[in-house]
């Protein structure tokens, strides 16, 4: 059997190898596609969408809030046109990343788009509001994680990738200790609110039990969460070549994936079961990001 026969007779067979980095790029492409499809939902073509955008201005400093309010007003005046453009851009980003010859250009465009949406659509993830940002509510903002993932998968040099990971999980640790997050019923309220949203029955059950278990224990839970985030942050600096230490590095990344799953549960899957979710929120992106840092894959992803 020759290669030409394979290529000619069965063009859908694996005639091109897919590296780990490319697989992760395709996963990012799929996420953008999903976001674009979610952006085409009927809710986004109504008044609720610009209202949702303008709501992210609350609590932000005036220089940050003013452009958010302005863009939300503008979008509200041309909702069909603007939302169609937003959705189409996201679908185009997804398809662009998936097409190899233009993948890097699409990754660069996705970074620029993510930063814009992070500001005008997510109010910088609520980081400057001082109260609302918490890892379990999506801090530092789902869409900025897309940009971070695109940079890591560009690929960025290992030192830069590790520094980004440290900054990300370090900021998650800091957010976990903000006043709203460490309040006695802070974390419990987040899980309770998630349980109140339309969700698959099993997930709602889990959210209710977490809410009940965390009620009144917000401070202790926040400290545990912050310590865990800090440990995850430094785990990528462990030399994974050595068996024992390497196991610690792998455990750090595995903990990041597990925590991402818990965060996604607290985020009620990004509200995608409500018909108003614009993306699956930060949980899946954090998990995808962690996969890029899996010990042994870092070299391949960075290659």
């Amino acid at each position, binding site marked *: *059997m*020759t*290669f*030409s*026969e*394979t*290529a*000619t*007779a*069965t*063009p*859908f*067979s*694996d*005639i*091109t190898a*897919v590296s780990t980095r*490319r697989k992760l790029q*395709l*996963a990012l*492409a*799929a*996420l953008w*596609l*999903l976001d674009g*499809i*979610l952006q*085409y*939902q*009927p809710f986004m*073509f*109504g008044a609720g969408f610009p209202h949702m955008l303008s709501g992210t201005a609350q609590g932000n400093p005036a220089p940050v809030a003013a452009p958010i309010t302005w863009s939300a007003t503008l979008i509200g005046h041309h*909702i*069909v046109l603007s939302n*169609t453009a937003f959705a189409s851009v996201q*679908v185009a980003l*997804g*398809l662009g*990343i*998936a*097409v*190899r*010859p233009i993948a890097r250009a699409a990754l660069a465009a996705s970074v620029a788009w993510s930063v814009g949406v992070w500001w005008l659509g997510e109010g910088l993830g609520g980081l400057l509001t001082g109260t609302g940002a918490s890892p379990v509510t999506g801090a530092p903002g789902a869409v900025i994680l897309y940009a971070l993932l695109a940079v890591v998968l560009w690929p960025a040099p290992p030192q830069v990738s590790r520094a980004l990971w440290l900054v990300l999980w370090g900021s998650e640790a800091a957010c976990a200790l903000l006043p709203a997050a460490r309040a006695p019923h802070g974390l419990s309220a987040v899980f309770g609110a998630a349980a109140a*949203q*339309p*969700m*698959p*029955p*099993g*997930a709602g059950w889990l959210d209710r039990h977490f809410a009940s278990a965390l009620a009144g224990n917000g401070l202790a839970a926040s400290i545990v969460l912050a310590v865990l985030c800090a440990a995850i942050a430094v785990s990528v600096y462990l030399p994974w070549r050595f068996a024992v230490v390497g196991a610690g590095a792998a455990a750090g990344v595995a903990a990041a994936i597990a925590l991402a799953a818990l965060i996604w549960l607290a985020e009620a*899957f990004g509200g*995608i*079961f*409500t*018909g108003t979710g614009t993306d699956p929120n930060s949980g899946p992106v954090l998990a995808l990001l962690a996969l890029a840092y899996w010990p042994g894959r870092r070299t391949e992803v960075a290659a």
Partner: protein
Amino acid sequence: MNAPVWLGYILAGLMLTVSGYCAARLLTARRLGKTTELDTDVMHVVMGVAMAGMLVAQLRTLPVAAWEVTFGFATAWFAWRLLSSRLSPGRLSRGRGRGAGTPWRCRPTAHLVECAAMLYMFLVLPAVGPPAKVTASGMPTMTAAQARFSLLALAMIVYLVGFAARETDRLPALAPARLSAAVPPPSAVPPPSAVPPPAVPAFLAPRCAVLCKIAMAVTMSYALVLML
């Protein structure tokens, strides 16, 4: 404006185009001396018509029960194909073995999910609770309390967008120049004494076939999202 009715019309038009194109592939492939994925093209013809009817109420053709039977059979067929490929990988899996001697050569997993998604949309939703309300675009919507199967729908959406991304990744490799470049140098050609491999006709318009798969996967994901 609430529901993007115009979007339903655009996607329905796209689905009918895919359906018509795949029907043309089935009719012309043999005449052109080329091969195609029979099961894929047959399913795309049927799915295109069914999806158009789901997206635009005026384009509904067959009763729901008929679609349920159709996609139930198709789901069983692709499940069997998947099982066969797992039990005897050499017969259906990759490379020469996949589809050699038979035009039934598709990737069964993707089509199994697509057919299951169609069956889900036709069969499961009407059976959940009181009658679902129908949007202007013809798509039924499901209230939160009725979303017993929403996790299944989400899993299918995730698979389909991943499939669309993966298929898009294959597009450049299917360019005619890339395929012809894959022809081995003369030294790699086996000596005349060796048993020549069976002649396999070239595949008909592989990139167009992949574009149909991408369009179908993305549109089906959108239809499923509307039902979450």
